């Protein structure tokens, strides 16, 4: 762990990213301290600009506090990213592990299914899923997960394919270890590094997808998220730029931070790559 941190720390941008993410997490966790009111409350004069009428980042068309929305929305947006990523990693590992480990017909079947999901234009498919399940946090998470897992499956499959022929895995077979145990206890821990790296990037992508869905009017109207704010402010971008620009910047910074972290993780977890430089 300490060694991991030493390596991670070498990438200064990644440390910056981590700092930003921690700030955002802190913000999300303490949202109720800074803005105890429900972010949906109509607390003041509508469409006040930044620093006007006591609004740090302005208010939206109904007089809701944009800053409060950003702070409260951070939790939702990060959770959407995180849960969607976890779900898709779970599905991806399932498909990738079985396909890579067993090969042959199992591989064919599972990879055909994966290809199906890769062939469908993903953003439209996400829209379709959200529209069918009706826009809610749940359906958004599911939709993002469903369109994101094939990448994980391919990655995991590749790792399993190469790891399953490693001698330490063969050694497990020679002592009669069961397949499931070999997959879960022996192989899986060894492909966690790339999964963590791809996962960190998927969190960022998920946040972007959520904002895209919200832009098209497919957000959850009952929960404050950055996507919600963007949806609420998009038609007034020209006249009240602050309503969706600040959430946009929040997304930009978060996605940027997560990407920096992802690169840092990549450097730290796959040290070989770094040394070549």
């Amino acid at each position, binding site marked *: 762990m300490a060694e991991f941190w030493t390596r991670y720390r070498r990438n200064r*941008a990644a440390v910056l990213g981590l700092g930003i993410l921690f700030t955002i997490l802190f913000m999300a966790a303490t949202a109720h301290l800074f803005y105890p009111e429900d972010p949906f409350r109509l607390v003041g004069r509508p469409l006040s600009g930044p620093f006007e009428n006591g609004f740090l980042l302005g208010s939206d068309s109904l007089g809701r506090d944009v800053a409060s929305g950003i702070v409260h929305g951070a939790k939702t947006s990060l959770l959407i990213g995180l849960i969607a990523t976890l779900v898709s990693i779970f599905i991806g590992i399932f498909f990738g592990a079985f396909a890579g480990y067993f090969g042959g017909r199992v591989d064919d079947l599972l990879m*055909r*299914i994966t*290809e*199906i999901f*890769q*062939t*469908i*234009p*993903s*953003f*439209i*498919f*996400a*829209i*379709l*899923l959200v*529209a*069918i399940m009706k826009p809610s946090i749940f359906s958004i998470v599911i939709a993002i997960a469903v369109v994101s897992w094939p990448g994980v499956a391919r990655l995991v499959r590749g790792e399993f394919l190469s790891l399953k022929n490693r001698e330490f895995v063969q050694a497990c077979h020679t002592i009669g270890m069961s397949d499931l145990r070999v997959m879960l206890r022996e192989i899986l821990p060894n492909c966690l590094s790339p999964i963590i790296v791809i996962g960190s990037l998927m969190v*960022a992508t998920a946040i*972007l997808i959520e*904002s*895209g869905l919200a*832009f*098209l009017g497919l957000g959850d109207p009952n929960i404050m998220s950055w996507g919600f704010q*963007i949806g609420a402010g*998009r038609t007034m*971008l*020209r006249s009240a730029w602050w309503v*969706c*620009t600040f959430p*946009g910047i929040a*997304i*930009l*910074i*978060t*996605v*940027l931070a997560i*990407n*920096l972290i992802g690169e840092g993780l990549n450097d730290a977890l796959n040290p070989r*790559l770094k040394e*070549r*430089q």
Partner: protein
Amino acid sequence: MPRSSKIFRYVSKRLLQGIPIIIAIIVINFFLLNLAEGDAVDVLAGEAGSATPEYMEQLRKKFGLDQPLPVQLAVYLKNVLVLDLGYSFRHEMAVQDLIFDRFAATALLMTSTIILAVGFGILLGLMAAMRLNTWKDAVITVFALITYATPLFWVGLMMIVVFSLYLGWFPTSGMENVAAFYEGWDRVVDIAHHLVLPTITLSLFYLALYTRMMRASMLEQYGQDYVVTARAKGLTERRITFVHVLRNALLPVVTMAGVQVGALIGGSVIVESVFAWPGLGMLAFESLFARDLNLLLGIFLLSSILVVVVNLVVDIIYCFLDPRIDVE
């Protein structure tokens, strides 16, 4: 076996393998769409104002929506086999006419985006890799990340504000100047003029991907043994970078570009919406909300065929770029 007949065999095999995938996509989407509440008739009647239930029943009958689902699916699949994509309930047109009309716009945007994104991505990635760990590298990396992380619609609108409203260089939206209806060469220029902003917006998003990929790929290739050999042969660094490393580093980028084509059809919904670009993404989006099942299935069908074909083409290109890969 001669290479050409090998490629032919490979292509036909891959296309055959694509068929079940495409059928599966149709079936999945067919049932998914039917899970959704309401149908095309509800939308049409809703938009029309009031309509009697009898009239709506009549419409359903006309569209074949009164049949049980498996029958509808069977009819659809049967029609697809004879290359008939059916009839768009909403547009009252044959689906293929509708799609091919819009496909041209999508293909145009897609191609120009890929060229711009891949081209600049390679260039920037190359520059970053050659100037590793200098400020130029940092600037390029951060630039790429920011273009990736900025929500697309925001970039698009800002482009319009800056380049259409303030500078007046480009039209805000659409594909053609509808006041003029140019013809011939003027029309080509006009469309190109309209294409600029959507292309830049969309490629900014993908640019990041290619830049980072190219950079990583270059760095990886720089670490390969053959680079040492090339140095030991006394080649110049220029030659090593542009002939030896570049060509190897391009390989994963080519693969990625192929994968992106599929994503582009869907990923351009937002850009099409912002720039009123009459592409397939917007059409799919609208037909989803109109429950125009045939049309949506048609779009899914076309785009999956497109993905299958593009992947195939990329793989074949790859075979020529990388002699190690044989068409198998």
